[in-house]
């Protein structure tokens, strides 16, 4: 298992759990969450980053070894997402960018069309682009053409903790899209993260479920283990689910063995 790595934007990753920095009652818990989860990639909303702050800055709590994944939270159009991404780079947050284009503050559903536009522009500018989208095959295909480094389909609307509601659509993306598939948003419990990994997702991103747990560090550890368990199950090739028990006497036994 030690060699089970995957690659995004030229970086080899071992942990398949991405974490976040939003919603914590106290950011000082973030290093503990990173350690307990084993996560190597952490997303941060650029809108919350304040390098000049005298009152504390979320960036101070992100361990050095973590791959920073700034996100464009707050962007309502491709143009705004592009501006935020450029600002993130100018502020020293690196070349990775998670594109979130959300023009709907009620359900927080991503705008696939604007996301593809932003991805195309930013990929050409050398960003490693991880777009957050609905689990839609044609949007995902357009993202591949636009130069995305991974596709991040939602499991359920952001922050709902509803689980893998888009299961069948995510399965199709896993089968059809050659890029890493990172299930992002909606995963509320370790068992759901495990399920996404069993299905063959390359990674999952979990923020709300960890940040709003009574004990975020313990929940982070649970997610880390669940993701590893799901991955191992996937790699080990689980037996197919069957609705009925197998007939004890073979129905084709009369054929007398293989031809």
């Amino acid at each position, binding site marked *: 298992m030690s060699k089970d790595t995957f690659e995004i934007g030229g970086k080899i990753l071992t942990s398949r759990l991405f974490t976040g920095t*939003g*919603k*914590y*009652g*106290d*950011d000082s818990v973030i290093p503990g969450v990173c350690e307990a989860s084993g996560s190597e990639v952490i997303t941060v909303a*650029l*809108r*919350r*980053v*304040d390098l000049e*702050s*005298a*009152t504390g800055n979320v960036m101070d709590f992100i361990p050095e070894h973590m791959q920073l994944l700034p996100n464009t939270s*707050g962007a*309502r159009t491709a143009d*705004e997402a592009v*501006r*935020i991404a*450029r*600002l993130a780079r*100018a502020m020293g947050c690196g070349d990775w960018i998670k594109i979130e284009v959300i*023009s*709907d*503050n*009620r*359900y*927080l559903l991503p705008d696939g069309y604007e996301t593809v536009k932003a991805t195309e522009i930013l990929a050409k500018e050398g960003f490693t682009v991880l777009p957050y989208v609905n689990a839609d095959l044609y949007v995902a295909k357009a993202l591949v053409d636009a130069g995305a480094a991974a596709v991040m389909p939602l499991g359920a609307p952001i*922050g*709902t*903790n509803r689980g893998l509601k888009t299961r069948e659509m995510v399965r199709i993306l896993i089968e059809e899209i050659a890029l890493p598939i990172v299930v992002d948003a909606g995963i509320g419990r370790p068992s759901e993260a495990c399920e996404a990994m069993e299905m063959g997702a390359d990674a999952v991103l979990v923020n*709300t479920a960890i*940040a*709003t747990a009574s004990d975020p560090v313990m929940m982070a550890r649970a997610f880390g283990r669940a993701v590893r368990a799901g991955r191992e199950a996937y790699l080990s090739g689980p037996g197919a689910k069957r609705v009925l028990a197998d007939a004890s006497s073979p129905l084709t036994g009369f054929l007398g063995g293989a031809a």
Partner: protein
Amino acid sequence: MSFYPLIAAYAEGLPDARFDEFTEQDVHRAINRTTATVEDFMALMSPAASSLLEEMAGKASRLTVQHFGRTVSLFTPLYLANFCTNHCVYCGFNCTNSIHRSKLSLEEVDAEGAAIAATGLKNLLILTGDAPAKTGVDYLEACTRVLNKHFPSVSIEVFALTGEEYARLVQAGVDGMTMFQETYDEELYAVLHPKGPKRDYRFRLDAPERACRAGMRVVNIGALLGLGDWRRDALLTGLHAAYLMHNYPEADVAVSLPRMRPHVGDWEPATIVSDRDMVQFLMALRLFLPRVGITISTRENAEFRENILPLGVTRMSAGVSTAVGGHADESDEEENTGQFDISDARTVDEVCAALRNKGYQPVFKDWEPIFEATGEGL
């Protein structure tokens, strides 16, 4: 499109007596619904719900943490001027009140901005009275440009503007607006606003919608509870927020729950909104609109603000003065020129310490200016 015709429709469907018809069973059903309906919101606002506050609290608290985390955004108001041409009978800035009137120069605005920014705050709400000749859009634009140097987010709480004026201010770097309808009762509104531009009920009612269309990112509405029947005003505030969220999903809609406070002048509130009533409204709103922002100002005292924190609150003001200026040079602050008396006079540091003590993270910065005007051309 306007919320105006809907108010009449709701009034027809909700005669005064109707609130009393809801039963505890209706309230239970409303609490347990995945997505609360308008009917559920009415049940949650009804007298029947007042005995089920603890049950509502559990869900309100869960929903708030789920959608907003254990965080509270902080902002502070800066009163730029108190000139006013209105006669609002309940307001300290009423043009017939003999108070000292002043307006900050751009240099003073800069100094105030620097003083506030030194406390760590990043979200600023600028306020004026209603006197376009003295504090019109040109002045607000100029102030915003000065203040954007200190604050990534500048919001306005000023008189109702036209759509074009909102668009100009958005372009200048304003990203939020607050507009209190005061009361949704049109007849009472006419009585409370006997003269002045604010007398135009409909123009004010449609202001948040015009701001949404102009691209304003955050739109905060509210009714001044106690002016009229608080239950009806609270209900219509929630419905107004739902209307805006439905029609302008790109806007971040928030609701304030201001209660009448003492001020200069002799007008007394029509009804007193008790702490219990206020908590019921707060939680009913959270259950009806899980993603709506809820703002609590320093009209409320420190202890009450801390107690209601887990029940749905997402934004709070801190380090507040309601007098013009009042941040850069405290000795300059004159008695009795504020719009209302504040009840929570704690400093920003004290508010933050109290939030952290309750397990909440005070959020200072929640927006990064990205437009050409302020984004350094990126």
